[in-house]
């Protein structure tokens, strides 16, 4: 693989796509405990944002959690093992799909509480500011999460304190089965930012370059001490809200789904863009093979890993331990 931005971006998108396909397969096999939410369709938004960050910058995220740490560069094996609840999982089997965290790549936590990652990242930005580390924090959240009041609170505090934080909304048009248009007083989440003194930017979330550029601008602003930015990436999820969820009634038009899958697939769009540029089919196949290999390895690793011992449930509750009452 060529060690350039484009190849790396394409690889990360493929890793997300492949990881999600593998997870869906594992669900079918009955290997996955709990609920999983796939990021398929949203890869360009995620990777575009992450590639604009430095390795030690922070990210926080959501229940739709797999893409974010992968986009930030996390190893796949411990993530896949976590999905299966194995002791080798990145959270030692305590977090599962909705709570991926990999501090080794600056991933400080996906939150199953919608909106929960927003103050976490804002607080990480506060640390960066107080300690003068130059780090930036970026928080991924959905269009649905944007209706949690805590977003308004954090936008405002970040503006007041000029915190180096980027509020990154993956607006995929739906919160579970509720269309954004039925739950937003006006459609653009980015337009909410201005009222708090925060610049709001809308980008095409299916276009890696657009997302990457917008995030780079926001990162530069944050690092320069000029404060937060809200970026809204208009995107689409290709899968159901939750893998395997039975939805009682059609909440989104079949044509809409078909349109996005055939015309607006971020991986295909990026592949074509690279081919139009200076990448060859060979270059891309090499990257694709590499992604496949990594995913196969991760699946094998996860399957072969052991489950935690039940007694481990009583460990790691506190950093300064107390005796646990049973």
């Amino acid at each position: 693989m060529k060690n350039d931005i484009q190849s790396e971006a394409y690889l990360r998108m493929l890793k997300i796509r492949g990881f999600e396909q593998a997870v869906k397969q594992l669900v079918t096999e009955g290997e996955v405990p709990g609920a999983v939410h796939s990021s398929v369709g949203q890869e360009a938004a995620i990777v575009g944002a992450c590639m604009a960050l430095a390795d030690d910058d922070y990210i926080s995220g959501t229940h739709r959690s797999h893409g974010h740490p992968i986009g930030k560069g996390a190893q796949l094996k411990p993530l896949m093992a976590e999905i299966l609840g194995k002791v080798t999982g990145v959270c030692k089997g305590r977090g599962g799909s909705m709570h991926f965290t990999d501090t080794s790549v600056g991933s400080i936590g996906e939150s199953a509480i919608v909106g929960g990652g927003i103050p976490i990242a804002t607080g990480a930005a506060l640390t960066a500011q107080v300690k003068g580390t130059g780090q930036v924090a970026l928080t991924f959240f959905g269009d649905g999460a944007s209706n949690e009041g805590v977003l308004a609170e954090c936008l405002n505090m970040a503006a007041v304190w000029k915190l180096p934080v980027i509020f990154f909304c993956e607006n995929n048009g739906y919160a579970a089965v509720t269309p954004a248009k039925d739950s937003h007083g006006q459609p653009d989440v980015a337009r909410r930012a201005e009222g708090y003194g925060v610049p709001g930017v809308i980008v095409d979330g299916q276009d890696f370059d657009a997302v990457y550029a917008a995030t780079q601008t926001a990162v530069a602003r944050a690092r320069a001490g000029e404060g937060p930015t809200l970026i809204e990436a208009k995107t689409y999820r290709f899968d159901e809200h939750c893998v395997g969820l039975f939805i009682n009634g059609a909440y989104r038009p079949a044509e809409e789904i078909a349109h996005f899958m055939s015309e607006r697939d971020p991986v295909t769009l990026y592949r074509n863009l690279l081919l139009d540029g200076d990448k060859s089919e060979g270059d891309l196949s090499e990257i694709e093979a590499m992604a496949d290999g990594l995913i196969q390895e991760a699946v094998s690793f996860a399957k072969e890993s052991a489950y935690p011992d039940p007694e481990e449930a009583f460990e790691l509750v506190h950093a300064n331990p107390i005796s646990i009452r049973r």
Partner: protein
Amino acid sequence: MTESNTKRMTYLDALGLAQREELEGNPDTIIIGEDIALYAAGGAYGNTEASRIRSAPISECGFAGMAVGAAITGLRPIVDLTIANFIYLAADPIINQAARLRYMTGGQFKVPVTYRASMWHSQANAAQHSDRPYPMFMNIPGLKVVCPATPEDAKGLLKAAIRDDDPVIVFEDNDLWGKKGDVPLDTEFVVPIGKARTHREGSDVSIISVSGCLRHALKAADDLARDGINADVIDLRTLLPLDNDAILGTLAKTGRVVIVDPAHRTMGAAAEIAAILVEDGFDMLKKPVKRVVTPDVPIPFSPPMEAPLYPNPEKIAAAARELMA
């Protein structure tokens, strides 16, 4: 209740039936919650006009508070908070407003709002989706708190909650959603708030059960019966107000009590029940009170770690046997 007046259905369908009946029966009843029109718990709103079924934005604090404003001005809102962990986001309007507005205004209002919260656990969803938060709300005067353990009680208590003129939180045990039982079809059927129910009579040991633990308690009682130990099994059903008479009544029968409660040990509902026993029933107690509860750890994701944490029939039977020894 004659056979013909009941229908076998799941706990979830019983909740849905309760909602439909109350929505159809009273034009002041409305329901608010996320994704409620399409896939919310119970669904089935019958002939209710759309304006009374509000699929809300993800704004728990806001709509839980709005429901208070609606309740004091003449509606009877049902707020489906869905997974119980989200109730913390709505804690302020529930505690600071709903619970005390009537009192603080010298009785100018009643606050007929119902909050539904479904306690997910045993489902590998990890700590942010696996709480059983009823104990904290038991400490809030002005509220009422119910925890139905059967489809019949699910219907009857949810209906009672909706009809009650005070704020009531209905904590559902999600593990029971798919379980079936006979449910009265009478639209006037309600289960009175504040009354426990005896599910099995016995004279050796009492098992006082909270929420979904009832089925484990009954299994344990079967097992104990095989050893000639007769358990008196009661389901509290309402946790605020507690049915002190029932708690002391079963103690009077047996002198030995096991409390089964899916909440964490420290300050679970079992703590208050034990306190009542030792304060008001001391002279009847032949043995220490035993609590079969969930240990004080956040709920882990991985099933081999999660599953053993909760009360189960074996733990209950073992505790009862210790008291009989």
